[in-house]
């Protein structure tokens, strides 16, 4: 006679080893089993392609401006465009996005204006946009903390009977933080409509994945929470988009959260102040170039005759337009108002802040005198 503990009927299996991928690095179908996912239509892929080209141009431009000193710092997602664009595009407008410092490209995809995206990195103000307008949380810098916000937001939506799902990005490094565990667990216990998109770019600053985790894959974590986990080629936007779309559909149907591990590689340094030669070889970076997310989609679209030279030229032109607008935006220095230091700390006004503000204003007035 053995003990009988009720066994939950939750999701329990380890993801397939081979990352799901529709379009190979050579632009050809990979033939990898797809775990029920279907490749997006060529129309959809063309749209995603266009956005990726824009995003890449954006990243390049901002990185350049940062080197010139127009921005204090900038963490580029160059090389990870398929994740930024693929995951974000799958969202409905009413869904909420919970990005990190690395995800400016997702903000761009979400429609946040350039100056508002770059506010933090230019040093104007922490969050430059109105989260409620774009249904997008301020980009989180304290790692993994946003995974819990995404879970909580989704829980509220669920309780209110609203349709909104949440999607949050996190990195391979952030996956080691306690908050990530707590978010996975809360989301699965509460069956919140949340999608966790783990951009596994092989490094947390200088720390390689093998010193971050001993798991065969990070998506293996999901089973321990009774949550579906899946691993996709994060440089194949068809796979990313399909996986996120399917996860959002499940979420909307009340079937709870999903963990999607997207394998990718950070092509740039961590931020402009990083020196990647200290911890990785030029060959490794070279090696990853062949898996470029844009190249392969371009090959696919050209083979499928969805993309021709004229369209490609239009797309490049519109990306150049964006780059110009970024340059222009960063050329005019934003005015900052020292009084704003005190304006938003509390909803209920405080005497000590008022006094300090007066002092500062008096000081500035004196300094302004001839």
């Amino acid at each position, binding site marked *: 006679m053995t003990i009988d503990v009720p066994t939950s009927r939750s999701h329990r299996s380890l993801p397939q080893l081979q990352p799901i991928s529709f379009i190979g690095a050579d632009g050809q179908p990979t033939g990898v089993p797809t775990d029920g996912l279907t490749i997006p239509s060529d129309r959809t892929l063309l749209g995603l392609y266009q956005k990726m080209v824009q995003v890449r141009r954006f990243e390049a431009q901002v990185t350049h401006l940062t080197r010139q000193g127009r921005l204090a710092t900038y963490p580029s997602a160059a090389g990870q465009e398929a994740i930024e664009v693929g995951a974000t595009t799958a969202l409905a407008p009413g869904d909420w996005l919970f990005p990190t410092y690395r995800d400016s490209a997702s903000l761009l995809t979400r429609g946040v204006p350039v100056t508002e995206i770059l506010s933090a990195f230019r040093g104007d103000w922490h*969050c430059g946009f109105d989260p409620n307008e774009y249904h997008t949380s*301020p980009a989180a810098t304290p790692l993994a903390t946003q995974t819990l916000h995404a879970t909580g937001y989704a829980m509220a939506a669920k309780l209110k009977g609203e349709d909104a799902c949440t999607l949050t990005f996190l990195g391979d490094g952030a996956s080691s933080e306690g908050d990530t565990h707590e978010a996975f667990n809360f989301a699965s216990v509460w069956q919140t409509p949340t999608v966790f998109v783990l951009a596994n770019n092989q490094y947390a600053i200088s720390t390689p994945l093998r010193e971050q985790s001993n798991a065969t894959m990070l998506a293996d974590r999901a089973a321990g929470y009774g949550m579906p986990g899946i691993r996709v080629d994060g440089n194949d936007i068809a796979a990313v988009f399909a996986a996120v779309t399917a996860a959002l559909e499940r979420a909307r149907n009340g079937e709870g959260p999903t963990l999607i591990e997207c394998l990718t590689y950070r092509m740039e340094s961590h931020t402009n102040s990083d020196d990647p030669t200290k911890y990785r070889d030029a060959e490794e970076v070279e090696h990853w170039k062949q898996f470029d997310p844009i190249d392969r989609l371009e090959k696919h679209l050209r083979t499928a005759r969805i993309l021709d030279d004229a369209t490609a030229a239009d797309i490049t032109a519109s990306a150049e337009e964006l780059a110009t607008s970024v340059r222009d935006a960063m050329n005019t220095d934003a005015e900052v108002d020292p009084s704003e230091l005190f304006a938003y700390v509390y909803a209920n006004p405080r005497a000590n802040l008022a006094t300090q503000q007066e002092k500062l204003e008096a000081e500035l007035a004196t300094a302004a005198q001839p």
Partner: protein
Amino acid sequence: MTVTTATTAEDAPTPVSVTMTKALNQALRDSLSDDENVLVFGEDVGRLGGVFRVTEGLRKEFGPERVWDSPLAESGIVGTAIGMAMAGMRPVVEMQFDAYAYPAFEQIVSHVAKMRNRTKGKVSLPLTIRIPYAGDIGGVEHHSDSSEAYWCSTPGLTVVTPSNPADAYSLLRDSIASEDPVIFMEPKSRYWMKDELSLPVQTAPMDRAQVVRVGSDVTLLAYGPTVRTALAAAEEGAEHGLAIEVIDLRSLSPFDDETVSASVRKTTRAAIIHEAAQFGGYGAEVAARVTEANFTHLSAPILRITGFDVPYPSPKLEEYFLPTAERILDALESWDWEL
């Protein structure tokens, strides 16, 4: 010191004996009734009604979609509460004991305190974090911390603490209604304290201190668990001809400079009483700011009568650690009263 809401003579409710626990419970019940966005969750706050029974009966009354037991993880509790508040809810979460809020420290300091500021006021976080604090109940280690200094030194947080059932009700309702996130500190050793009271009750505004005993010789500043101690000292002092004024701070952040300065300018002497260790404790801020604002009016330095600069002790040593009425009176004697 407490005022019931205005009613006509006929339907004025008869005051009954109410514990602080019961008052807090009623405040949660009334907030849940009045605003469907109010949610209550945390460790064991559902079926059990919390280890101190503050949430007793609420799950039954409002259902598990409004009041529920979360998984056991404080960062998770506060972190998800942040998300819910972003979605327009007003979560009220419980940290089971003071030291068990520490796993949530990053979420509280880096997000709860800063969200409104970083978004230029676009996103408020109207959430309330209830923290049972302080000692004097024979708790084993890690169960008697007084963590108010951590929260008070964090810009963006509002910190309040009741010392009696009426304030417990009123301050908790105001905290839940506030657009600003509030750290609501509940003095464990006063949970079972009773007052004659009819609920609902609205006491002083949540950012004001209250003079709870008038005196002309010395001002004792106290909050939460030490208000009773200060009142006892005043009582005893009176027998020796010392007229002690006692102020219940109620709001630790913001600090009610106006009420305190008025009293100190009258008495010219003050002491702050708390359980937490002295070094870097909240009393340091009180002493520093009250001195700065009233320096020329002071006849003596502001004293801090507090726990010692050691970790909170085990139950059998508590009595030596905690500030008592005697210790307060002894300390007052250390002043040069001729000055």
